[in-house]
């Protein structure tokens, strides 16, 4: 009746080839995305590793009343050009921090100028005279790359050696605190209402459509909202962590609602029926039985939402969080900047040393985000229940 196996198999050769080709093509798509990630991460590491190091020179620093007003004189004339300008700007401040300095001469590691710094990192060039001096210092062990503490503690600065992510990190912390304080309770409450309380009517469906839509609204529109409503209408101070946090909270809200709903939905109805059966009110069913079971899922979703909020930039730029902040205040109402915004401002500076800082800041940001996501994944794997 039908062809024999041999005849069919012969005809199949070409068709199997097509399957193999499809497999190869789709596999290369996946490999390509992996390659993108590898190239990207490699590029960032290669550009950014050196931000964690800073070329420094061991010099005699003279602390006198005279050098307090004329900081340039604190350092031997031969080496002045090698030291970063930022060192001299911040010099008078040192006296206020430690009055006992006055009248002493100390051997200190001083941050080098960005030219010398880049030279020590093997990137830039120096004039032959400077190069001679630096080479000699390196030989004597008086110039080397050392761990760059300023990068983690410093704030905005025009001098690369003095610039750091400290101020921006504090700003991010405050902003995200505001964000989570608002979006977590409201998001969870909304999800509970929609999953457990809401009647199935037109109003509820409208809220659902609205939430799904809100999750796909471009982030920059939230910036316009923050600008017009929070700043323009309610008069929240521009550039403050409060206005940034509020704006990002509205963005994070739909994410938290959606993940919380999924987590509530995965709780089997049997648990609810059992609780109703012993005479619980609806709220008691939710608070005593459903919420404890779905808590890990809710937290996982919130952490992922938080990670996304930390990386958000565009709306924060619109509400002015790209302020130049040399020293951050622990305040919700004063001007502040956040990590991604700091990255954005650094990226637009032409100086090679700032490009390095940008990549360094990116590495820090990515580390935080990957850690948060890893925590979320671990929590999901550890606590996830299958019913």
């Amino acid at each position, binding site marked *: *009746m*039908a062809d*024999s*196996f041999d005849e*069919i*198999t012969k*005809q*199949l050769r070409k*068709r*199997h080839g097509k399957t193999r080709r499809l497999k190869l093509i789709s596999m290369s798509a996946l490999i390509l995305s992996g390659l993108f990630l590898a190239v990207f991460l490699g590029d960032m590491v290669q550009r950014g590793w050196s931000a964690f190091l800073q070329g420094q020179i061991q010099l005699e620093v003279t602390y006198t009343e005279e050098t307090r007003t004329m900081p340039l004189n604190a350092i031997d004339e031969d080496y002045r050009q090698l030291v970063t300008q930022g060192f001299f700007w911040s010099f008078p401040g040192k006296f206020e921090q430690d009055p006992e300095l006055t009248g002493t001469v100390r051997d200190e590691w001083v941050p080098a100028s960005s030219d010398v710094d880049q030279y020590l990192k093997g990137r830039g060039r120096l004039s032959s005279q400077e190069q001679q001096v630096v080479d000699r210092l390196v030989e004597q062990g008086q110039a080397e790359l050392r761990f760059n503490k300023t990068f983690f503690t410093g704030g905005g600065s025009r001098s690369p050696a003095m610039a750091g992510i400290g101020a921006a990190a504090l700003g991010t912390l405050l902003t995200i605190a505001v964000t989570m304080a608002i979006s977590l309770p409201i998001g969870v409450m909304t999800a509970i209402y929609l999953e457990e309380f809401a009647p199935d009517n037109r109003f509820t469906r409208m809220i659902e459509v609205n939430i799904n839509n809100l999750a796909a609204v471009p982030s920059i529109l939230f910036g316009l909202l923050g600008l017009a409503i929070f700043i323009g209408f309610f008069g929240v101070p521009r550039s403050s962590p409060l206005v940034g946090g509020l704006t990002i909270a509205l963005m994070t809200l739909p994410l938290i609602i959606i993940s919380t709903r999924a987590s509530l939905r995965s709780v089997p109805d049997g648990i609810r029926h059992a609780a109703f059966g012993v005479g619980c009110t609806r709220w008691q069913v939710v608070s005593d039985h459903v919420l404890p079971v779905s808590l890990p899922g809710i937290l996982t979703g919130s952490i992922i939402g938080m990670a996304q909020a930390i990386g958000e930039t565009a709306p924060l730029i619109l509400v002015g969080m790209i302020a130049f902040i040399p020293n951050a205040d622990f305040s919700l109402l004063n001007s502040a900047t956040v990590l991604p915004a700091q990255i954005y401002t650094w990226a637009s500076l032409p100086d090679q040393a700032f490009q390095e800082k940008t990549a360094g800041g990116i590495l820090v940001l990515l580390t935080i985000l990957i850690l948060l996501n890893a925590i979320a994944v671990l929590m999901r794997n550890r606590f996830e229940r299958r019913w």
Partner: protein
Amino acid sequence: MTHPDSAARDTAAADGQTEQRSRSRESRPANGEVQPAVDHGASEPQSAGGRPERQGQSGGKPVSFNNEVDHERLSMTVTDLDLWYGDYQALKSLDIEIYSNTVTALIGPSGCGKSTFLRCLNRMNDLIPSARIEGRIEMDGRNVNAREMDVVALRRRVGMVFQNPNPFPKTIFENVAYAPRMHDIVSSRRDQEELVEQALRDAGLWDEVKDKLDQPGTSLSGGQQQRLCIARAIALRPDVILMDEPTSALDPISTAIIEDLMVRLRKDFTIVVVTHNMQQAARVADYTAFFHLGEIIEYNDTATLFETPATTKAEDYITGRYG
């Protein structure tokens, strides 16, 4: 392929079986009159007296033969088939001969391995990564269970109809014409139309759908969908059609139509059908194999199996003691 121990065991078992089979055949009068079983029913099988359960078959052959069947024309011959899911052995050294142009029914309680066995015949179990299958399934002089067998070629000749109707989300026409076109059986539009009409006629669906061939297959009723799936399978003119509880999701009227269809299709195809419904097996099948815990307990002419089963287990199942 076969473990030496099991081979030895099989030989021993085969000897015993021959003896038992001849005994059981003797015990049945030639005139087909039903005689009360001599000793089964009186004692619980196996466990009670340690007496071995009498085997209901030997070397894959049925206990008693159906005269309407040409036993020379073998469709598939299964020898010593074992299947493991991980460590769990789901099928234990099965032997069965399936004859061309017959309807063979596989019955047994849930989880007895009848569906698993059916899916071995067109290698659908290959899709389950944990499944490991050993043994020989011979068709057209080939071991289709061999590694080098092209499963696509096998499935081209051994079609399958599933428990729940699963028409493609395409038009009725496409549902039938798709696979023949892929296999280059037809190419021109006219040939396709002819083939689709023939297949739908064979499946008894033509009159109901001839005016709406361009509507989606999923728009049909459950029974019609299942017949569409049968049409889809027979459009390829395969040798064997496997049916995995084809009517269990259908209403009684659709079930009756499909049962009629099976009997009619026997003229052109060999049909192996798994069913939960013993009446269905009695109505449509020439031969019936009774499965229990991954073994074929009794393979017999359908009428004989339901009237005078050779084994106590089959009798207990048929009389409704379990299952």
